[in-house]
């Protein structure tokens, strides 16, 4: 009898301990969504890069899609009347955006190799990411590690901003209509982080994070430019969310503006 009581007491203690552990775990997780802030950029021991403006060159060009772009699919926003009201016509998917000549927008072009082991100053100006008409604007953006990204909500509905990184801490924060802007940063290089809104599952953007400033995102005409490159041999890469990556060698001579082009094959698209 006494032994049985002892067993019951120990079971009770185990239950209490388990409950307390779970409570602590929950408390540690917080209850207001979780932020990726307080993840300072990893300090580099590399010497700061010095670029001589007298010799610095640049690279510019156009990204094209060879072959017909897939038809732009209309987005069904019927789950939220504020989203349908914010758009006169249903918006289309931003996955593949080309102009009449097949020039491809939303491609991240960046120097992948040849920069050497240098550290670079983080730009003080933030990169702005808006939620407008229940779409992320811009669809693709690029930042330096540690650079601030400011998220705005211009819509009359609630969004949640949910990046899904593989190399950075994940976070998920809600933003009601009229709520203050949310400022976050990413501490490690990653190409590219999908940013979702789970309230509106069609909302998806990409943020590319670099340890250096030599990157650009192609605009509506597929054009891009990367400036202030020291003369040298590099590898230039282009990343697209559907078509993957393309690489090519790049030689920059003193004061030279090098023209390059990237051509993605439409048939190579595999979807996400």
């Amino acid at each position, binding site marked *: 009898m006494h032994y049985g009581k002892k067993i019951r007491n120990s079971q009770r203690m185990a239950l209490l301990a388990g409950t307390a552990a779970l409570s602590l775990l929950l408390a540690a997780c917080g209850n207001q969504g*979780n932020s990726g802030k307080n993840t300072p950029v990893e300090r580099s021991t590399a010497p700061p890069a010095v670029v001589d403006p007298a010799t610095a060159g640049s690279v510019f060009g156009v990204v094209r899609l060879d072959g017909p772009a897939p038809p732009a699919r209309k987005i069904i926003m019927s*789950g939220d009347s504020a989203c349908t009201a914010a758009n006169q016509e249903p918006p289309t998917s931003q996955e593949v955006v080309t102009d009449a000549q097949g020039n491809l927008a939303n491609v991240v072009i960046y120097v992948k190799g040849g920069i050497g082991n240098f550290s670079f100053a983080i730009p003080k100006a933030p990169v702005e990411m808006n939620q407008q008409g229940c779409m992320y604007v811009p669809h693709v953006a690029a930042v330096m590690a540690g650079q601030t990204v400011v998220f705005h909500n211009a819509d009359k509905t*609630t969004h949640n901003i949910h990046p899904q990184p593989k190399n950075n801490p*994940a976070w998920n924060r809600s933003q009601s209509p009229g709520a203050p802007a949310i400022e976050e940063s990413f501490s490690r290089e990653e190409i590219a982080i999908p940013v979702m809104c*789970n309230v509106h*599952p*069609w909302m998806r953007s990409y943020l590319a994070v670099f340890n250096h400033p030599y990157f650009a995102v192609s605009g509506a005409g597929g054009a891009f430019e990367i400036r202030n490159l020291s003369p040298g041999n590099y590898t230039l890469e282009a990343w697209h969310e559907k078509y993957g990556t393309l690489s090519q060698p790049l030689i920059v001579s003193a004061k030279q503006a090098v023209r390059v082009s990237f051509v993605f094959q439409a048939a190579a698209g595999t979807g996400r």
Partner: protein
Amino acid sequence: MSSAYHPGLHRFSLVLLACTFLLLIAGALVTSNDAALAVPDWPLSYGTLTPPMVGGIFYEHSHRVIAAGIGFLTIILAVWTWLAESRRWVRWLALAALGAVILQGVLGGLTVLLNLHYGMPIAHACLAQIFFGAVMGMALFTSRWWISDQPSVPDSGSPSIHSFALFNAATVFLQVILGAGFRHKSIPIWPHILGAFLVAATVTWTALTLRHRFGNVREMKLARILINSVFGVQFLLGIAAWASRLVTADAPQPMPAMVALTVIHTVTGALTFACSLLVVMLCYRLVPRSSEAAMVSTRTEAAIS
């Protein structure tokens, strides 16, 4: 079976079973609509009990509300069973169901707070099925059929039908884990496909054994037909759900056909697991285990001599 039949408790268990099935649908809708993190906080939703019910918030918050209701019903079931039921193991099962639903709530919260990491969504999905099985057990064990005397059916085969049924249920549950792993993007599709063929083999093997050994036992016949039918439908649904994923892979959002098929596939998976548990329960109810049969035989011999 010496326990008294409590029709109210049995009916209440059936109501809870039906509500739990609704909860499974609500949970599957959350995943299929990519809405699990539409509400970033927990246990409240956007700091309130009444968030704006738009987009993904509708699915996630509805799931939480239904789950809270199920939790409340399970508390009633546990207290009622503890007060009315004389079988100690049934009382403990009711308490275990309550423990499972509380743990399930905590896992749901952790799924949100830990951003779907650390296998939380998989654990949440699998425990849901265990809870569903436990509530089904409560509904069966409190039924008039279970409590009333049933003719004992001897099993002369080897391995025993209990072993077959348990192995089958364990294989189906393994497939549940693999399915949840794929659905929550932790593993590729091929282990789940492999699992489907493994389950096809164990279900067929179990059904054939049931037919061979207990072909004239009505309950066994019904259970055999049930698990075969449900698994057959589930197998076809799996193919359809996968095809719908492939066809809509380039769509900018979860498309209704994909959502419908993956939700139906998920809840039919829960039904398949429940059916496999039902076969186990029926075997233990109707077929004496070898040790029990030996004991009965010894007693009979002793009585004759």
